[in-house]
């Protein structure tokens, strides 16, 4: 029960349709580490790093397919506690940007699943979403749809590089 930051630097989301496996390196997945784990997502931040105009249709969405065989994070991506006094969790949340020979996450197309539209022009654009205390985006358990969420780009535009972080708190 401590706030953590999952971040990735200078990555280019792949413009991908709903219910389609997201390619390695084109997403940021956050999911429950156990069947009963609750994750409260507190903040999402994206800063455009592209060198030319790049409308990028970013979405924070639920998943109809939770990724399998997630690869360990590779630098410069990271996931760590904000407080140095944080104890290790018995069941750490799953944060991933790639899968190893498994199935990538699929963004839900359900009309009853929530999404946050966080589109920006990656040529200098900035998007930040912060939840009020007690009103965070919830991820519960580790099965679809409520057990995982993914930051990725919808089809269209000309995706550009961004820096991004997700501040969250697992329980």
């Amino acid at each position, binding site marked *: 029960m401590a706030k953590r930051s999952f971040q990735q630097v200078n990555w280019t989301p792949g413009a991908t349709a709903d219910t389609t496996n997201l390619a390695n390196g084109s997403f940021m997945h956050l999911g429950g580490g156990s069947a009963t784990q609750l994750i409260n997502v507190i903040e999402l931040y994206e800063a455009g790093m592209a060198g030319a*105009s790049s409308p990028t249709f970013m979405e924070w969405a639920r998943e109809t397919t939770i990724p399998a065989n997630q690869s360990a994070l590779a630098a410069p991506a990271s996931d760590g506690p904000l407080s140095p006094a944080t104890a290790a969790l018995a069941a750490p949340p799953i944060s991933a940007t790639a899968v190893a020979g498994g199935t990538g996450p699929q963004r839900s197309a359900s009309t009853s699943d929530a999404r*946050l539209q966080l589109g920006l022009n990656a040529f200098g654009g900035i998007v930040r979403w912060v939840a009020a205390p007690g009103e965070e985006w919830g991820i519960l358990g580790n099965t679809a749809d409520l057990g995982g969420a993914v930051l990725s780009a919808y089809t269209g535009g000309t995706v550009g590089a961004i820096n991004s972080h997700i501040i969250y708190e697992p329980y």
Partner: protein
Amino acid sequence: MADLPVFTRLVQVPSTRSFRERSREGYLLVDHTASPGMAKDLAGLSTGEGTKVELPTVRCGHCPSAYVINPWRQRERGHCFKCHHRLCDECAIAYKINKICRPWVQVVDDVKSGKTETPVLARSLGPGI
């Protein structure tokens, strides 16, 4: 004080209630002050070149979804008078039909305690259940 609007009178009267609905609002910033921005037909909002948009967001009381408050909305917004929380459209429609209040915190508690194996939202329950 009698000639003031009702709301003004209410906020001026000392009350034991310290809760304000706005305290539940989140914050969305879309800053294109140094960017070509997005065309309106692409983003759904006016986030073109040189613009900076700040909007409140809220979380539904019955599911863990956050959504942007549309300032131009004319239809009534969903609200649960049992848990006194705003509802998203999906949960608001279900609430009108089944009248079931099952707050998100209860959904979490039920999964944590093993009462339900997976999250069971109010909108997935039928009338009379």
